[in-house]
């Protein structure tokens, strides 16, 4: 499986008469995008706004963030099973509009959507303040049930990202990264002297608006399975999540899955990165036992010496994280966990809902309960009053002057548990 990832650096985004990329600028045909969103009769109103780094803009409530990509050679298309047919992806060549994202907002779907500030203190906490964002403001038809609402907004974001990605089809990329993943037995034999490492990629599947899709399949319904890193880069995994903004993996995070990238960076030198196991985080004990057993079995089957295990969400999935860890460790497979913390606003409380002494190597992406004050912005895209109800906010979080005081939990991607960001915790 060999994938060339051609990155087209986009330094600005503008509205224009037709959607295209010229001299590093993405021009967006606003009317075409709006029409595309309105094709879905579950959506009553659609608007497109632009938000660039440094602008005094707040986007709230943010549902998903998606990177525009296009498949230019090799089988299938981006977001297989969602936007494209379900062909196996991860091979050939994919172009990326790097520096751009599609951000979906509109009336809140669940309680757990987030905030992106393009400047000010909040901007430091979200990676998406550094992107040129094409923001879709989607308003649902009256009386639309929440699950339908979620699906409609999810699909709108993916469709528009695929549409914008098309603009990069014939553009010469600024750089091309080549990733090659061998069939398992060949891969395992490739570096006989190095320890073998597997990535255990936990996907949020608690249900009830906490869902992730792989090739269009709801992850609740999978047994843990194998996937090539390059399939993930082509959008095989997409977010359908309304889990807390700070630690939900947006589709953008999956497309740029950081553990995969950082393992590939040291692959063949410090270890042999032999594969990725995707698993779920279902809510019943039997599901948790089954999935952690199956994950452990797969990792053992692959002959791994070590594994990085990343979590998504918090509380209930802490149990899955600890089960995966302890079962692997008991098989002699050394683990490192990536999680975040809910240590209370004062930082003095216990951080996870589960613990085990075998989890002796943990990377933390920050205490989501820490409180931040976000100053008012000149422009707000979306619905600022959502600040009073989203997870991490409280009745009164939004002040009369437009400033917001809330836990950093409200900031999209701020304590991402794939390790995408730099925030962490120390004890004082």
């Amino acid at each position: 499986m060999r994938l060339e990832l051609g990155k087209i650096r986009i330094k600005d985004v503008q509205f224009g008469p037709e959607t295209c990329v010229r001299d590093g600028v993405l021009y967006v045909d606003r009317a075409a995008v709006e029409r595309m969103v309105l094709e879905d009769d579950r959506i009553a109103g659609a608007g497109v706004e632009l938000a660039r780094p440094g602008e005094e803009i707040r986007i709230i409530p943010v549902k998903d963030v998606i990177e525009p990509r296009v498949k230019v050679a090799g089988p299938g298309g981006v977001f297989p099973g969602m936007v494209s047919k379900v062909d196996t992806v991860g091979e050939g060549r994919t172009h990326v509009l790097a520096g751009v994202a599609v951000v979906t907002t509109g009336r809140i779907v669940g309680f757990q959507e987030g905030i992106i500030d393009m400047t000010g203190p909040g901007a430091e906490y979200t990676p998406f303040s550094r992107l040129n964002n094409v923001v879709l403001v989607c308003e649902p038809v009256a009386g639309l049930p929440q699950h339908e609402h979620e699906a409609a907004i999810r699909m709108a974001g993916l469709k528009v990202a695929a549409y914008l990605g098309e603009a990069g089809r014939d553009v010469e990329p600024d750089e091309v990264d080549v990733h090659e993943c061998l069939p398992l037995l060949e891969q395992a034999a490739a570096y006989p002297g190095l320890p073998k490492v597997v990535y255990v990629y936990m996907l949020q599947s608690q249900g009830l608006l906490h869902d992730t899709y792989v090739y269009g399949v709801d992850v609740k319904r999978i047994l843990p399975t194998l996937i090539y890193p390059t399939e993930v880069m082509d959008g095989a995994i997409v977010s359908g999540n309304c889990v807390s903004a700070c630690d939900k993996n947006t589709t953008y995070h999956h497309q740029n899955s950081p553990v995969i990238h950082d393992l590939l960076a040291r692959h063949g030198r410090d270890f042999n990165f032999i594969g990725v196991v995707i698993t779920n985080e279902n809510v019943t004990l039997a599901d948790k036992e089954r999935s952690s057993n199956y994950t452990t079995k797969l990792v053992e089957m692959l002959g791994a010496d070590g594994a990085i295990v990343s979590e998504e969400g918090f509380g209930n999935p802490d149990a899955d994280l600890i089960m995966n860890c302890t079962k692997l460790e008991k098989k002699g497979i050394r683990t490192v966990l990536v999680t975040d913390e809910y240590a209370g606003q004062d930082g003095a409380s216990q951080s996870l809902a589960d613990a085990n002494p075998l989890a002796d190597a943990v990377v933390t992406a920050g205490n989501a309960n820490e409180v931040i004050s976000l100053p008012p912005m000149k422009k707000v895209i979306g619905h600022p009053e959502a600040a009073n109800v989203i997870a991490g906010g409280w009745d009164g979080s939004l002040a009369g002057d437009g400033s917001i005081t809330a836990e950093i939990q409200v900031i999209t991607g701020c304590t991402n548990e794939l390790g995408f960001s730099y925030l962490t915790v120390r004890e004082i």
Partner: protein
Amino acid sequence: MTRKIRVVHYLNQFFGQIGGEDKAGMHPMDKAGHVGPGMSFAAALKDQAEIVGTVICGDTYFGENMETATKEVLDLIVKYEPDLVIAGPAFNAGRYGSACGAVCAAVAEKLQIPVVTGMYPENPGVDMFRKHIHIVETEGSAAGMRQAVPKMAKLALKLAKGEPTDSAVDGYLTRGIRKNYFAKERGSARAVEMLVRKLGGQKFVTEYPMPQFDRVDPNPAIRDMSKARIALVTSGGIVPKGNPDHIESSSASKYGKYDLEGIDALTAASHQTAHGGYDPVYANENPDRVLPVDVMRDLEREGVIGKFHRYYYATVGNGTSVANAKKYAAAIAKELVEAEVQGVILTST
């Protein structure tokens, strides 16, 4: 020139130059100015602060009368109108360490002024008080006095002036407080590096040392349910329609107590969920799904349970800190015990 910072120093009978173990039963007393190691503190505090008084108490007296002794010591300290209190250092002396910790914690709480003490990490006083006060790490014995005093004095001045402190820079034992900062490498790169080290048998430092978990043994079974009063308590966020107490959808800062008198079952019109961690559609459609009032009424009518308690308690478990959850549980349990409830059904989400 600004006024000097007023310091009171706490010492035991030995460092307070009263006597050894034979004097350990002495009641608290005070002396104006500095005593014993207070002299080196006075030198280290230089012209910025002055030890205006010293309070001395016997270790045995303090240990055996912790509550009264703390109050007596506090009363003596207050007289001097201090801006700052320094205790010890106690090194590895257990009773002395506990006393220094208790005095500092009481001063911090009641007088709301900065406090500093010093102990060896294995002193039992450390575990008792590290979360509440600044404890500078010292050697195990008084031989470490020369190193301890300047560290404690420097930290004390910083605290008195309201300057930021850092356990790594200022040499105090971490207080178990989790504080965010931006690392140089992103999380995934740190995870890869940690795995390389772990696999290679090299030293690595976990970013989150696992805590010791509280395990609660279940109570003995209720022998006769048909005579028992049973209550419902939920972290699933079921509240009267409109969420009158404004319980937060995540990180709840409170719980609610609600009357079920005359209610046979919950409905979409009467109740809802405030919880932000799950899709509320099904809970809002029929709140009995999370708080089974309907079934409890059935059981009551059938005589399976003696009485269904009139009130239920609700909070939101989503992202709510364990410390807060513990606090709510203690308050709820107290009321349930007072109301002679024998059993509780806890429902989550």
